[in-house]
């Protein structure tokens, strides 16, 4: 079963960490993807650019509205994701607990709905 691990953290707090710490966290995340790959649990993963680079697109009544930034006023922003294969929720949670972002922010574990008709990669 597929799970999406959404890493949320406070960007300001993250930026206050030292360059070395941030680099180490990234390396640790990459290392985690290799471990997952070796176990056949890896599907995809990436960090995201800061929320300040985001755009919001809405289409209402055929009209397109494009605005800047996320409109939810929370300190925690999505900072990256891991798409994984896990046997069940407990296994997904165990993997989530190894995501370095869990130590400074939160990792949301979302079961993925598997639908047919999608292109295979």
């Amino acid at each position, binding site marked *: *079963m597929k799970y999406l691990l959404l890493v949320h953290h406070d960007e300001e707090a993250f930026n206050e960490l030292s360059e070395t710490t941030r680099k180490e966290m990234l390396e640790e995340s990459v290392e985690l993807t290799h471990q997952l790959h070796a176990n056949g649990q890896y599907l995809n993963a990436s960090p995201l650019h800061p929320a300040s680079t985001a755009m919001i697109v809405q289409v209402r009544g055929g009209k397109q509205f494009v605005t800047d930034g996320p409109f939810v006023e929370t300190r925690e922003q999505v900072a990256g994701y891991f798409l994984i294969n896990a*046997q*069940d*929720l*407990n*296994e997904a*949670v165990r993997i989530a607990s190894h995501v370095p972002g869990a130590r400074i922010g939160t990792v949301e*574990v979302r*079961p993925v709905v598997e639908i047919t008709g999608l292109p295979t990669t």
Partner: protein
Amino acid sequence: MSDGTIKQVSEVVDEIYRSESRQVLATLIRLLGDFDTAEEALHEAFAVAVDQWSRDGVPANPRAWLVSTGRFKAIDGMRRRARFDASLVELAKQLESQFSTSHVEEREDEIVEDDRLRLIFTCCHPALSSEAQIAMTLREICGLTTEEIACAFLTKPSTVAQRIVRAKAKIREARIPYEVPSEKELPDRLDAVLRVMYLVFNEGYSASLGESLTRHDLSSEAIRLGRLLIELLPEPEALGLLALMLLHDSRRKTRTSPSGELVLLEDQDRSLWNREQITEGLSLVQQAISRGVVGSYTLQAAIAAIHAQASRSVETDWTQIIGLYDLLMQVEPSPVIELNRAVAVAMRDGPLVGLSLIDAILARGDLQNYHLVHAARADLCRRLERTAEARVSYERALSLTKQDPERRFLHRRLTELR
């Protein structure tokens, strides 16, 4: 077959339903992989039992019979529905091949206990909200109806039903596994199970001050769950919690007067405390302590045990109680425990010492809106004959409590001051 025999069989079936249905359900959930399918299968199996047992007699191992009948009924049902939903064909086949390779009936006795633990840990899974954990536990493990749960928690049956439906959907959709946690995860997961039990117990215990009798049954359900848990998993804190619940429950009858007034521990008729529960509680505390690491429930039970052992209030060993509160503060520091410790200190060293400890808690800004801190403070001021201060604290306590017997008690104290 005569009417008399049929009646007898249906009585046997009822009896077996009461004693075995939860175990059969727990096993069927594992075999069928789904709560709703398992519940349906359980009811079908019992329906078949009424018919078949009156014809052929009660089988030697009714539980195994019910499990195997339930799973065949479930597979049948899947085949029937498969005509409309092709995905079920594969599932039915898969389930059937599993059964033919695993000798369910022979292995059943060994694994059935694990099934009940699986059910307990799944109902109390941290992915479910606390309300959902409680509703699932009472529904699936205790076998209470949705109406009974709603009545006990003073909510609408539709609210409880919705909580259960959502919890089952989450178990299915997020794929919460039906398993006993690994050794590494066990302490955290067990905490969650114990918390559910203690919440259920307290809901019943504090309700016994009120009117509703059905709510009182929650304490008995919690104690039953506690017994089941220590039978399956005799972890020290599980023993400690059961001891704590039994020792509290032993005083149930004496906590209120016949007219429904609150009776304080020191004024209770100790000859009416339930000796059987006390004896069992004391022995469980001993067992829990002898296992080495002593947790919060065990320490609370040890405190309750000291009260239970004093045949008169004045004989209470307050020094030991204070020592246990000191340990409890190390395990689980909290202002409420600090307050209880302060009251114990007041009992040993006098109200003035206790009062300064309570004032220190309040000065920090803790427990400002907790009625018992003001009630305790009022009581100490009363004993020190600081009438004006006592009045202020009683009034503050009164403004913060909603429970009728407590309100009446505080009112009584307030009038006595004048």
